[in-house]
C-alpha cells in the first residue's frame, strides 16, 4: 500500500481498524488467494468472497473521507459494516459518541447499534427505498427519526421536519405528500433531511447521486457539500465516480478487489496517483 504523508488532524470520531468482511468459509489460505495481485476477491478454491479486508482509516469532525473503486471492489461492504447493516467478519469500528464514549460498533448488540443509528450515525443510501419508508409522507419520514429520539410534541416535530426539508430544498408544499410520488432527486433530498434529523456527528453516503440525471445529481451534490461544511459532520462518501469524491472529500482511499491499494489527499491522489490501479481509474475518469 502506498501512502501520502500524513497530516496533523483533529481527533477522530470514526476509526475503522483492520476491518474485514468475508462471504463464505474462511481459512488461512483464502486471503492469499484473493486481492489485487491475484486479480479477484473470490477464492477459486473455496468460492469465498473476501469483499473487504484490512481496511483502516480515521475520520474527524468536519472531515469527509472518500472510498473509491470500481464495481465490486468492496465499497458498499465497508459502508454496511460500519453502519451495522451487516456484521463485520474481522476488525473494529470505533465511534466516539457525543457524550465522549468510545464504542466498537462491530461488537455491540444489534439493539445498541440501532440506538446509535438514531442520533450518532446516519446513512444515505443510493436506493431511497432503503433509507425511506416510501409509503409515508416526507414529513413522516423525518418524524420517524425524531420520535425515535424521543420527540413527543407534534408542533415541534412538524416545525423541525419543515426546517430540515426546507434546508434540503424539498418544497414545503410537498411535505405532506407520500414519498413514493417523488422524483429520484427529491427522494434523495428527503433522505438527507431524515439522516440529519437528530444532528448525527457521523453520516455515511453510499453513491448518493448514482442513478440521478447529471443536472439533478449536481444539485444534490452541491447541497451535500454545503451541509457537510455547515454542520461539521464526519462523513464517509462511497462512490465509483471521481467527480463525486473530488467535490465532497479531502482524503480518500482506493479499493480494488476488496483491499485498499492507495490512500491520500484527494486532490494529490487525483493529480498524481501512485498505484497503477489508481492511475488507471484517474485516467479513465479524465477521458
Amino acid at each position, binding site marked *: 500500500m502506498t501512502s501520502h504523508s500524513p497530516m496533523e488532524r483533529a481527533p477522530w470520531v470514526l476509526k475503522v481498524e483492520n476491518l474485514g468482511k468475508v462471504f463464505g468459509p474462511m481459512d488461512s489460505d483464502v486471503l492469499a488467494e484473493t486481492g489485487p495481485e491475484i486479480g479477484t476477491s473470490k477464492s477459486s478454491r473455496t468460492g469465498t468472497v473476501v469483499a473487504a479486508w484490512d481496511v483502516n482509516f480515521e475520520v474527524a469532525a468536519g472531515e469527509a473521507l472518500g472510498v473509491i473503486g470500481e464495481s465490486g471492489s468492496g465499497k458498499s461492504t465497508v459502508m454496511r459494516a460500519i453502519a451495522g447493516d451487516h456484521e463485520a467478519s474481522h476488525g473494529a469500528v470505533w465511534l466516539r459518541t457525543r457524550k465522549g464514549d468510545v464504542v466498537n460498533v462491530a461488537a455491540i448488540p444489534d439493539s445498541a447499534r440501532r440506538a446509535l443509528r438514531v442520533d450518532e450515525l446516519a446513512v444515505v443510501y443510493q436506493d431511497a427505498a432503503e433509507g425511506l419508508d416510501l409509503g*409515508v409522507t416526507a*414529513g413522516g419520514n423525518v*418524524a420517524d427519526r425524531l420520535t425515535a429520539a424521543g420527540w*413527543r410534541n*407534534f408542533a415541534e416535530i412538524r416545525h423541525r421536519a419543515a426546517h430540515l426539508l426546507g434546508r434540503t430544498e424539498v418544497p414545503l408544499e410537498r411535505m405532506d405528500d407520500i414519498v413514493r410520488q417523488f422524483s429520484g432527486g427529491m427522494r434523495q433530498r428527503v433522505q438527507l433531511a431524515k439522516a440529519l434529523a437528530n444532528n448525527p456527528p457521523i453520516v455515511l453516503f453510499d453513491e448518493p447521486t448514482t442513478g440521478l440525471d447529471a443536472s439533478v445529481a449536481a444539485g444534490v451534490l452541491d447541497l451535500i457539500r454545503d451541509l457537510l461544511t455547515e454542520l461539521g459532520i464526519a462523513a464517509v462518501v462511497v462512490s465509483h465516480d471521481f467527480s463525486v469524491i473530488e467535490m465532497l472529500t479531502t482524503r480518500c482511499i482506493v479499493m480494488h478487489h476488496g483491499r485498499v491499494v492507495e490512500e491520500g489527499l484527494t486532490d494529490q491522489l487525483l493529480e498524481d496517483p501512485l498505484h497503477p490501479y489508481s492511475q488507471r481509474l484517474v485516467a479513465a475518469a479524465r477521458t
Partner: protein
Amino acid sequence: MTLTHDSTTSQQSRLEQLCPPTPRAGLIDDFAQREIRRAILTAIAIPGYQVPFGSREMPVARGWGSGGLQITLALAQSHDVIKVIDQGDDEGVNAVNLRRLICETTGATETSEPAEATLIQSRHRIPEDELRQDQILILQVPVPEPLRGVERDMRELARMHAEADYSKMWVSLYEDKVRNGVITRTTGYPCLVNGRYVIATTPIPRWDVPRLHQAPFLTLFGAGREKRIYAVPPRTDVEPLTFTDVPFEVESTPGARCHRCRSEDSFLVEIPGPQSQWICSDTDWCRRERLSKEAQI
C-alpha cells in the same frame, strides 16, 4: 423424604384445592387449563406483553370471543359469578350463548349486575360501574397486535416490541393528525402499559381507555385466532399514545343524552332511525339508572 400414604393424600387434596377437577364437558381439559393459567400469570408478570398460548378449538368461531372464552373457562369455578356482555348488552345473542356455555361447563352462576360478578367477559365495553379489585375483566380481542397496521413482518414486530421501538406507531399517529387534523383512531387505541409495552386496547372505545389507567381490577385480553393473551394488572399505568400538545380525547356528542335514562355521562351509541336518538351502550347500567331515577320521583 419418604412419602407416607397420608402425605400423598394431603398432597392430593391440596392439588384439588388449587386445581379442582371441575367437569368441563370436553371444552377445556386440565392440561389446557394449566397452560392458559400459566400464560395468564406470565401476562400479569409482564404487563402489556403478548403471551402466546395454544389456543383451542371452541364451540364458537375464532374471532367470536374464543380467546376470552378460554380465559374465562380456565379461571371460572363453581363459586364464580359470571357476567357476559357483547357491545355493552347482556342480552345480545353472543353474550347469552357464551354465558350459558360458561355456566353449564363450570357450574358458575350468571348475573347481569356488575357488582355481583367475579368474572366479567366482554366484547367492546368496560361496564360503566366502577369495578373492584376482587373482580377480573376479560376482553375478547380480535386483533391483539397494535403494530399490525404499520408492520407486517412477524420478526420485525417481535424486534420492535423487544426494543420498545415504537417510532413507526408514532409516525402513523403523526400522519393521522396531518391528514385529518385530529387523531382519528377510534377502537383499539394504542396505549403504553407500565411505561414499557404498547398494547391494542381493542375492542373497547376510547371512552373506556382512561378507565384502564391505574384501575383497581385486573384486565385480561384474550385473542383466540391470534393465540395471544396479555394483561393490565391492577394499579398499572395505561397511557394512550398521543403527542404532548394533542390531548387524548374520548368520544362525545355535545347535547346528546340517553333516550331511555336521560344520562349524559355514559357512553352513548346512536340508534338507527329517521331522527337522531342516543342510548347508553351499557344496557344493564341504563336499566338501573332508569330505576333509580324513577325511585327519586
